[in-house]
């Protein structure tokens, strides 16, 4: 069987300029920093990044912004990274804002084979601009469409060699959702255990959606 374990360099090599990436993390907590650093080192260009936020200038996805690898972000907020706002105002970075719960469902829908979801969030606000609306039992909902990516770069606490994943506390956030929603899913893990080393009840993401595993700092 295919060995999914690769080096950071091998993982990064697969990603072309212009790729659409989903990157896990919430203000950097749960972001695969080795993969982020790998993208910067390789000098990737024109990336589109789907993520919860752009973190801080010196942390997580923020570093990709500061180093100008990104042409577009689809995120729920950018308030913690002044560089994102600066590039947006300068017109060098496109920013698409999505309510956080809607973003989570759109990513999940992409991975779960759904066309999208119907949400009350955003009805009657600027978020509804350009979107279809549907009324069910007299209540209006926005049609929010599924999101997919070329690559998902995610971070887990633990994996077995098959790619079954366990996440840690608030580092879980968007990571499990993104694992399903990309053509290629690469996970950076802190701990690699033998197959059979994780209780079947405690796996957060089944190996079926994981393509490559990169060992993190704690080997």
């Amino acid at each position, binding site marked *: 069987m295919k060995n999914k374990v690769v080096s950071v360099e091998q993982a990064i090599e697969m990603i072309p300029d212009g790729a659409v990436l989903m990157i896990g993390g919430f203000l950097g907590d749960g972001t695969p920093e080795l993969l982020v650093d790998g993208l910067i080192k390789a000098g990737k260009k024109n990336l589109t990044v789907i993520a919860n936020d752009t973190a801080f200038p010196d942390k997580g996805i923020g570093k990709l912004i500061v180093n100008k690898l990104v042409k577009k972000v689809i995120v729920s907020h950018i*308030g913690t990274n002044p560089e994102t706002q600066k590039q947006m105002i300068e017109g060098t970075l496109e920013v698409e804002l999505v309510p956080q719960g809607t973003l989570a469902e759109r990513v999940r829908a992409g991975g779960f084979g759904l066309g999208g979801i119907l949400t009350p969030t955003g009805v009657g606000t600027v978020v509804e601009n350009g979107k279809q609306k549907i009324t069910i039992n007299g209540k209006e909902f926005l049609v929010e469409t599924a999101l997919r990516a070329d690559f998902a770069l995610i971070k887990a606490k633990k994996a077995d060699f098959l790619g079954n994943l366990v996440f840690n506390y*608030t580092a879980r956030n968007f990571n499990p959702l993104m694992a399903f929603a990309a053509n290629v899913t690469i996970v950076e893990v802190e701990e690699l255990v033998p197959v059979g080393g994780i209780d079947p009840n405690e796996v957060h993401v089944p190996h079926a959606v994981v393509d490559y595993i990169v060992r993190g700092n704690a080997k």
Partner: protein
Amino acid sequence: MIQDPKIGRTVIAKRVALELKDGDIVNLGIGIPTLVANYIPKGVTVFFQSENGILGMGPAPEPGYEHPNLTNAGGSPVTFLPGAVAFDSATSFGLIRGGHVDITVLGGLQVDEEGHLANWMIPGKLIPGMGGAMDLVTGAKKVIVAMTHVEKGGVPKIVKKCTLPLTSVRRVNLIVTDLAVIEVTEKGLLLKEIAPETTLDEVLKYTAASLIVPEKVPTMPVTL
């Protein structure tokens, strides 16, 4: 009118805290709402939910006890209380949008006569993004806005009609400021309480929306 802004914020937090009932699931926004956690009444146990994926969040850890994978929605280290749970972002917003959060306390830029809140952007000036605010206001069982009554310079934040982009068309339930407690009712904004050291005239002067003013308006039951 309370002159010291710090005391003003404390009054807001103390007053909001009185709205929390035993067993409530509570989501606190950043800024003034965060302070509410410091004033939970005795005998009341509430569970703090944070949209980054935790229920049962405790206060900041002692120095040296910070863990990089246990943070709040502002990215700061927090702790677990007994019975705490971690979950992914979809589940976190399932709780929020699905009405499983009893109370959310959020900051505000404007609230209008219809109870509509604007709190996520100032066009051409400040576009941080909505984060989880739109889902929270749309989905939580009870929405409390905790904010200063006026902007710096005395510009009212409670207005006839929001000029800033709305967070949701779902009406908020209660507005707690450093001047007053105002309930959003079917008939309009009902003045429920006035802050200590504050007069009715001051409340009316700094409010740009119509208020329903009962004959007797009690003082907020908080100590300065």
